[in-house]
């Protein structure tokens, strides 16, 4: 999930207000299109998948603070419509802990929603031809590129290209040391701050590109491993299969 990690007060109001309006319009239609019983049945699942996205972001994959974000996965589990709702919930909760500005919730939901939408449909299309492992990898990877491009475009258009720091969730998350509960975590935090700044500012675009590439690969394969895992046990969890 790439999303804009801009704080409030940088992007001009026209943009984020438009973002909000678009986001709410889409939400409105999603919520209205579904009849009561169907969505009510889904309420716990949407909540759970949102929680899983938040958890994915808080489990570091190693001493380098990279982690999964599972946006495409949530699309595969929920479908694009409910996935959009989950994207909204996740961005809202993140904004409340100042991970991304409050004003940017709308735009961020649109970006993540797009990633989910693209990922879901690609997965669906690829699954007809390939097995689920490559399908997931390609779908996730492409969806990530799309949302990244969207992020870059939006930030570029609104805040001037200089600040375009498309940020895949693969660095800088100083948070959540579920796994490393002791000792090491302090150093992790320090290092990541330093390396972030270094990468971003001094090593320039090449380093950034590499990071994004690695991040993309990790997310794609991570998602694929997860999908492969539960396909063995509960293949019915894939949203399209149930349709």
């Amino acid at each position, binding site marked *: 999930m790439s999303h804009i990690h801009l704080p409030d007060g940088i992007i001009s109001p026209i943009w984020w207000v438009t973002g909000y309006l678009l986001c709410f319009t889409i939400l409105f239609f999603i919520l209205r299109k579904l009849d009561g019983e169907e969505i009510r049945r889904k309420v716990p699942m949407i909540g759970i998948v949102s929680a899983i996205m938040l958890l994915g972001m808080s489990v570091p994959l190693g001493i380098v603070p990279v982690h999964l974000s599972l946006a495409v996965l949530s699309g595969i589990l929920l479908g694009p419509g409910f996935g959009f709702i989950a994207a909204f919930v996740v961005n809202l909760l993140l904004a409340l802990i100042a991970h991304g500005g409050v004003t940017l919730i709308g735009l961020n939901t649109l970006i993540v929603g797009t990633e989910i939408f693209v990922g879901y449909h690609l997965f669906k299309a690829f699954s007809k031809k390939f097995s689920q492992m490559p399908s997931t990898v390609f779908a996730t990877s492409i969806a990530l590129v799309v949302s990244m491009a969207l992020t870059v475009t939006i930030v570029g258009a609104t805040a001037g290209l200089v600040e375009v720091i498309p940020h895949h969730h693969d660095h800088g998350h100083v948070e959540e040391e579920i796994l490393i*509960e002791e000792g090491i975590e302090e150093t992790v935090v320090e290092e990541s701050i330093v390396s972030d700044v270094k990468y971003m500012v001094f090593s320039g675009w090449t380093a950034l590109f590499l990071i994004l590439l690695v991040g993309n690969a990790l997310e794609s394969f991570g998602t694929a491993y997860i999908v492969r*895992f539960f396909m063995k046990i509960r293949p019915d969890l894939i949203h399209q299969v149930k349709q």
Partner: protein
Amino acid sequence: MESLIKVQCLKHIYPDRTQVNICGLDFIVNTGEKIVILGPNGAGKTTLLSHVLGLLSPVEGTVEVMGLRPDKNFNIIRKVIGVVFQNVDEQIIGPRVYDDIAFSLRNERMDKKEIDERVKNVANSLGIGNLLDKIPHYLSGGQKKKVALAGAMVMMPKILILDEPFDSLDPKSKGEMVTLLKHLNEVHGITLIITTHDINVVPEIADKIYVLNNGNIVTYGTPKEVFSDVEVMKEANLEPPILTELFTRLKKKGYSIDIPENLEEAEELLISLLSQQQVQAST
């Protein structure tokens, strides 16, 4: 002899600032012992075990396993201790039973053939050899516990830690588990550390009991010693096992009778008491 595990006046603070103290007496485990930790909900039993496993670091106090600090020597300690947590659903990771049992071995990059051998041996010895290609998710509670146990046993640990191993098992599965654990201890010499609320199995499975309450290890000793300390037991929300309680009451009424460990002993003791009474009275 050096003790295998030694914990002294532990203090732990969870990220949310919940403070857990395990002070008072020292927690000491020697090789080959069967230890049971008792205490009310929230006493800190699981916290203590996590420290022994090196999953947590103490704020104060010392934790030593074979003379080492487990948190600093995690990769050494984790190989000598096997664990089965309370909720086995949350620790079985392999998509198939075989994968799950082989998990640790594969992480050690062991030879494929040896892995295969070890997995099969362990599975057979726990009586789940026929489940190896099943999906763990669909197994019964008792079977899952055995899979988790196999996953821990496959590394041939010296110490086995079990957090509430009898929870939600039916009586037969529970009985099997008790037999299995005793077998592991007797035949393979594995040191056992067990927490449980199922007090009635304790006399059978424990050499030594530690009682946690209110941030302290308040007492320890053989089941007989601990269970007869009525004050301490009551304070720690504990009840002695039914048989212990029954026989203690008889004792108090003036009958001279021992405290039995299990049903068979209880029966024998009672019958011999009853016939004694007869003899006594008739003489």
